């Protein structure tokens, strides 16, 4: 669409004074900044020899959390794959071998190359089984290697928990907050309004 002439505003270039024409004040100002940076403490890190301290909400490689008994926490509800905008999560559900739940993931594969690391899977998960970690240097030699299956994602959990970089942030219950008993004293309107 052409821009109507009434919308066009012509701006005049400001005229340079003597100080600007000499450039010296600007040079001095630049030198002051340079000097300041020379004496300030250094924040650049020598990656990969030095590992960065990333914030807990950094969105890196996924992991599948384990429950208290070391089993995969995921209940194969497909919420993450439904929420995923990149369609990179593939789950095959099966009746669970454990008596305390109906369903578990027989296979759980994330295509780490296809993933856009938006963190929507983490938000969608009703049992906080999938979390993004602070692992940021993900490399591999083939595309197949970057398809992370259930065992690989659980090993990411073991790795990150051992290192202590990513503590478990679980808040949800066995099947999400909706399936749990209300807190002591029952639900009040104000508490639900806050949450």
């Amino acid at each position: 669409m052409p821009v109507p002439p009434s919308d066009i505003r012509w701006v005049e270039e400001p005229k340079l004074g003597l100080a600007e024409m000499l450039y010296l004040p600007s040079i001095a100002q630049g030198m002051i900044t340079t000097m300041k940076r020379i004496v300030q403490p250094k924040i650049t890190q020598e990656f990969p020899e030095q590992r960065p301290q990333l914030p807990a909400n950094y969105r890196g490689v996924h992991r599948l959390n384990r429950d208290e008994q070391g089993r995969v926490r995921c209940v194969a509800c497909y919420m993450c794959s439904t929420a995923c905008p990149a369609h990179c999560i593939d789950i095959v559900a099966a009746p669970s071998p454990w008596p305390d739940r109906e369903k578990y993931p027989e296979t759980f594969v994330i295509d780490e190359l296809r993933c856009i690391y938006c963190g929507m899977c983490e938000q969608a998960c009703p049992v906080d089984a999938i979390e993004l970690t602070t692992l940021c240097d993900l490399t591999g030699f083939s595309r197949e290697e970057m398809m992370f299956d259930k065992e690989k994602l659980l090993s990411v959990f073991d790795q990150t928990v051992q290192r202590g970089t990513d503590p478990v942030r679980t808040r949800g219950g066995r099947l999400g907050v909706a399936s749990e008993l209300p807190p002591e004293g029952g639900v009040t309107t104000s508490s639900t309004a806050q949450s």
Partner: protein
Amino acid sequence: MATVFVNVLPDANGKPPRSDLIKVEVGGQKLTLAPVDIGNEKLNLIQAAERAGVFVPHYCWHPALTVVASCRMCLVQTGRRDPDKNDPAKINWSLLPNKVVPACQTPATDGTIIVTNNPLAKNAQADTLEGILLNHPLDCPVCDKAGECMLQDYSYRYGRAQSRMIDEKNTPPNKPHIGDNVTLFTDRCIMCSRCVRFTREVAGTAELQIINRGHHSEIDIFPGEPLNNKLATNVVDLCPVGALCSKDFLYTHRVWNLKTVDSVCADCSTGCSIHLDTNKSVVYRLRPRHNPQAQGYFMCDDGRLGYHYVNAPERIVRPQMRTEQTLTPTPWNEVRQALVQDLKAAVQRDATGVLGVLSPFLTCEEAYLLAKFLKGLSGQVRLALGPVPVVGQDDTYPKDRRGNPIQPVRFTIRAEKCPNRRGVEEVLRHFQGDLIPFDEVIRSAQSNSIQALYLAGGYPPREEGWIRTDQAEHLKNIPLLIVQDLLPSPISSAAKYLLPASSFAEKEGTFVNHAGLAQALRWGVTPPGECRVDGQIFLDLLERRGLIHAPTVRQELGQEIPYFAPLAQGDLGEYGIPLQG
């Protein structure tokens, strides 16, 4: 003549939904009433309100089952519009004060007012939902019904955000032993008793019952009498929540990923209307679709669970041609050219020795195109009807506890296990005059009078197979044998040309059921491998250009064959078109 008045709300844009609304103030309430003429029909308030476009939420009521009014979800306030006794010109409007009634068991009479959306009715609905949810586990993430669950939908639309329940919920154990195809998650049940009434009224076999009382009520079977009648899986569709689940579909897919097309079941000549649920070219389940002209609300388990051959890895997926002694996969173009050449040569030698066998699994359009192709080679080419699989007797429901059928019949599973015998027969009668049964084809083969045979099959697997081994032996001597089928059979290994056929889930067309009802078949998945839909193969043989489009062929069929004349407009609608004949 009876008129019912339904309270309506303005639509999302603030406009009244229709122009003939009556605005009155009754008992301090301002009502906007839509008059609905229900004639002499016997309707309840749910049905009457539906005529005005107002939905009354309900769980236990189902149009095919008796009324129990046990779920209390359909509570509405009612009133009356009566002419004044003393002054006929004056009209009195009145509402039942501070009282709601279940809409499902209240008959709509002349002058009934239905109010579903005032605070009284809305509170009643929300209270009912809160009561229903007291013991519901809210395990939606692992529940198969999530996404098509009436409890989810109504809670969202009519319920409250939270429960005031502080006690521990009942957690009765699951009952996977309830039936071969059905499993029960007891804690999700809301006690609407639809399943119990279905087994008593439609199936008649009465396997299900409610045990215990009050909040400890549970659905259960009689010990040692599992829910294994042939209509059993209908209780899964009837269940408004995820309590009764189909073992076949359990945990295979989430319902919101499924794509649904309206189609027709191909398992017997009843031709049940179905929803075909698929995703990524895999059929996941069939569900019955209400069709008053075909089968009603339900379908049988044979049809519902008999679709697995569509996804079977054994299917013939490539066109094959015999070179030397073995069948070799060959590109379509080469197969088509060689096949037409061979057929033309056979027709030149002896046209009466060329036979086309059309199976009752072909759609009318496919039968028409193939008949047109073969008759186009020579008028003397003969066309025969393929074997019609018949298993036992027509199976009618309800049955009593001993398995004897009871009148009136509410559902029939036909003995004739093919969807389109009538349609194919009519096409054959038009092109052939008389009908040649398959046995006569075998007799001709025995006397070595067949030069070429085009066997258009598409038979789904059956235990006994669609062709007997001795029949196949006779046909093996035919010099030019063209077999088009879904799965390998005794005859397919002897073919000179072996073409892949397509299943009912892959093709479009028309099936004519036992009563002459023409219904539209629609495709939900793409054919596997190099397989082309049957209609496309015949279109290519006819050397017509383009892709197969069933409605266009259907129009041509309707114009050419008088029996199919009602189909000439191409569209068959939701319920199909009954054909006279």
